[in-house]
């Protein structure tokens, strides 16, 4: 894994925020799943969110592309506020790419069709150009030789890389990752993490929910710890892992770093 420490000096990051979450609350019925979330993400910043299951980390990033609705507070993505306005939601979704834990490739379409779908139907790009975009991104994740296969014929790691490429075809400004390697066999985790690191090297703004601490250490600008719906602590990887401030953080770290 390439050491990205040199890029982590905050001043080198652009000063404008691309995601602002202000006093956000979300309830599932009576259950207060996200409590007073305040988070600012700058352009090209890379954040890893960790925490025990049920802490609300997936829910948080799903609120950013409106797969979940928040009830209180504000979420502003690339200057557009997330409300019930459908037009805004669609605009934001075209700028924000998401990679799911279970890949969610479209099984009835070939790989290249999976990727070209967004450009053709959302960006209204001609077919040939869409396929070129698709092949370009497939090459980026090193899976161009599988272009004409169907998702059912690929392994888990291959499918996840295709999923990453599919999101990239929309030229998103932000990439969200919801536990991208949790459903993979151990020997396939590396190929997916490598693809994500390459993405990082190109300067993509990334928010990753993951337990892969090695990845966090080498690539993240900030690591956030969430528990019971709150962001408990957030810091640079060195500070976070060497100097956890809260007891809950210490407890969590002791459980996962053994």
């Amino acid at each position, binding site marked *: 894994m390439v050491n990205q420490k040199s890029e982590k000096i*905050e001043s080198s990051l652009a000063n404008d925020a691309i995601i602002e979450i202000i006093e956000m*609350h979300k309830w599932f019925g009576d259950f207060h799943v996200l409590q007073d979330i305040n988070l600012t993400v700058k352009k090209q910043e890379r954040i890893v969110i960790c925490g025990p299951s049920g802490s609300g980390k997936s829910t948080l990033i799903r609120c950013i592309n409106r797969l979940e609705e928040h009830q209180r507070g504000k979420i502003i993505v690339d200057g557009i506020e997330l409300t019930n306005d459908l037009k805004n939601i669609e605009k934001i979704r075209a700028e924000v790419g998401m990679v799911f834990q279970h890949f969610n490739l479209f099984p009835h379409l070939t790989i290249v069709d999976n990727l070209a779908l967004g450009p053709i139907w959302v960006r209204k790009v001609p077919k040939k150009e869409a396929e070129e975009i698709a092949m370009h991104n497939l090459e980026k994740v090193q899976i161009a030789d599988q272009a004409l296969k169907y998702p059912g014929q690929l392994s888990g790691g291959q499918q996840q890389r295709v999923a990453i490429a599919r999101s990239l075809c929309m030229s998103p400004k932000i990439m969200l990752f919801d536990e991208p390697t949790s459903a993979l066999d151990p020997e396939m985790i590396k190929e997916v993490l490598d693809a994500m690191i390459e993405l990082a090297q190109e300067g993509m703004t990334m928010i990753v929910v993951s337990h892969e601490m090695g990845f966090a250490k080498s690539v993240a600008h900030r690591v956030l710890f969430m528990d019971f719906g709150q962001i408990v602590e957030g810091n*640079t990887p060195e500070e976070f892992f060497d100097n956890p401030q809260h007891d809950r953080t210490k407890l969590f770290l002791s459980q996962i770093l053994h």
Partner: protein
Amino acid sequence: MEKADQINKSKDIKPPVTQVGVIGWFRANLFKGWFNSLLTLITIYFLWMIVPPLIRWAFIDSLWISTGAECQQSDGACWSIIPANIRFIIFGFYPYDHQWRPLLAMALLVGLLFYSRNRDHWKKSLAYAWFLGLLLMGLLMKGGLFGLISVETSQWGGLPLTLLLSVFGLTAAYPLGIVLALGRQSEMPAVKTLSVMYIELIRGVPLISLLFMSSVVFPLFLPQGVTINNIIRAQVAIILFTAAYVAEVVRGGLQAIARGQYEAADSIGLSYYLTMRLVILPQALKIVIPPSVQQLISAFKDTSLVVIIALFDVLRTTQTALSDPEWMGFSAEAYIFVALIYFLCCFFMSNYSRRLERELETGL
């Protein structure tokens, strides 16, 4: 390099009042968006138009115990047709004084069914209990022993007949269905072809054609002078029909068994018969219990067709009661009553099968 925010005590902030509680439920479930709200309003309008008159007809203006003449005068539902004819509807032509026997037989059946619901009772003793139970039921109905007077099968009718045809039908059809399913899986071409032909032929034709066949063609198959009565002919037709469907259900179960099971049994040296009996069938049959209950429900509904070959199941007894001049014209009430019987039975069986499927899926 920002530090964490203080951990707010935000637990005491309540969700917006429009999101939870009664208002929240209404908003989310009935009035989410203008389209849904419109739909809700239109539906409520239609319900308002239909339900109150229906309730008035069925409950307020209705008569529950009265004569036929009084019913003709009233505008409401004439439920009195039921109590007046109930014993005929339920028991058909069974001798009046001995109707406790089919009643007991039905109670026995229902008791066995309820007992079988609990999966903890699924042991070998249950199979014996069923065998004994069915024998006892046949004895109660037929009589001729132990001081019970003999009642000819031509007098059997109503609900006991319906239950008998379905339960016996499925019970006898099951082993035949298993044999057919195994035959269809077989690698012997002759056996496979015969099984496939049988299954596809029976599944491709309506039950009524088989009942017709049983009614007019079976007698021709028999040598001179031998007759079998109506009910047995219909029962045979129902068994042959149900067996083909059971075969497909069991085939689904057999296909779900991994190849490795067959290979493991082979490598121990088990013969075909033992492999099936000890390894494959126990697993396959467990898998297909929910669809088998569905099959029982279908068999139960299908027995209503024997009306067409003039057997007095509960549907025909109802029609006969309706042909009485005193009660003519109240078909709706009578049919609703029978429909209720069928619905209750099928609903409980359906529910049970769904619950069973959930339990089995989670591997309990």
